[in-house]
């Protein structure tokens, strides 16, 4: 795990982090297994313990629909934050390209814990905002770079 503490639990005391981790269940994914699928109801988020998770979107390649890599997540990182953000539906497909272990947190368990521990809720919400914000900034940049290429191709 990166620096020993998952990105979702940064800033929490060891005691608070331990309580949150106790809410999760370990899930072992074999190589090629799917963690969640695009369009499914998002009921849980996952923190990667070991291995890797590929996030993909479908793309038409030569008339065939192919899952194309959008992002790759490594130990310590969180996937499936759609479980805490309305409309609670996955907008990507997550698969394990190799044997991978994740800790799964159900929305129900997290929301109940947040209600009882507002300080923990605030810290985790900020960490989640950082994860979402980083995704936004990266994709905003990647989108602009693609736009630049389109402009160069069309109006060179």
């Amino acid at each position: 795990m990166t620096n020993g503490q998952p990105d979702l639990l940064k800033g929490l005391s060891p005691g608070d982090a331990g309580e949150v981790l106790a809410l999760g269940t370990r899930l072992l994914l074999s190589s090629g297994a799917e963690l969640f699928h695009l369009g499914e109801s998002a009921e849980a988020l996952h923190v990667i313990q070991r291995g890797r998770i590929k996030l993909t979107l479908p793309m038409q390649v030569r008339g065939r629909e192919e899952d194309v890599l959008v992002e790759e997540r490594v130990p310590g990182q969180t996937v499936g934050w759609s479980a805490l953000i309305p409309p609670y539906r996955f907008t990507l497909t997550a698969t394990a390209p190799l044997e991978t272990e994740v800790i799964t947190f159900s929305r129900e368990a997290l929301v109940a814990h947040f209600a009882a521990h507002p300080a923990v809720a605030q810290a985790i919400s900020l960490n989640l905002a950082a994860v979402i914000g980083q995704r936004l900034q990266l994709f905003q940049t990647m989108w602009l770079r693609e736009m630049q290429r389109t402009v160069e191709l069309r109006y060179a």
Partner: protein
Amino acid sequence: MVLCMSVLGLAMAAMAFGAATKPERTTSMTAAQPGAAQVAQTRFFVDPAPGRVPIEALLLEIENHVRLEQAAAESFVEYPTSALLHSKTVSTFVN
């Protein structure tokens, strides 16, 4: 008189022959063009089109491109400058 008539007849025959064969030559030249196109077309179908890579290789190329673009975007997010925003990668997908 006979000689003149013979020369005149020969000249007319030569002109008639020339007139008769000229369109044929043009036709044969015109006909050669589809022939050349046919040869080229045959070559087009026989030779694999340049850049027609197997789909698995294409998917790997796309994946590699995404990784390079993400790395470039991460550099920009860390130090936002116009130069980093438009920095080039070695991705074969766009180069």
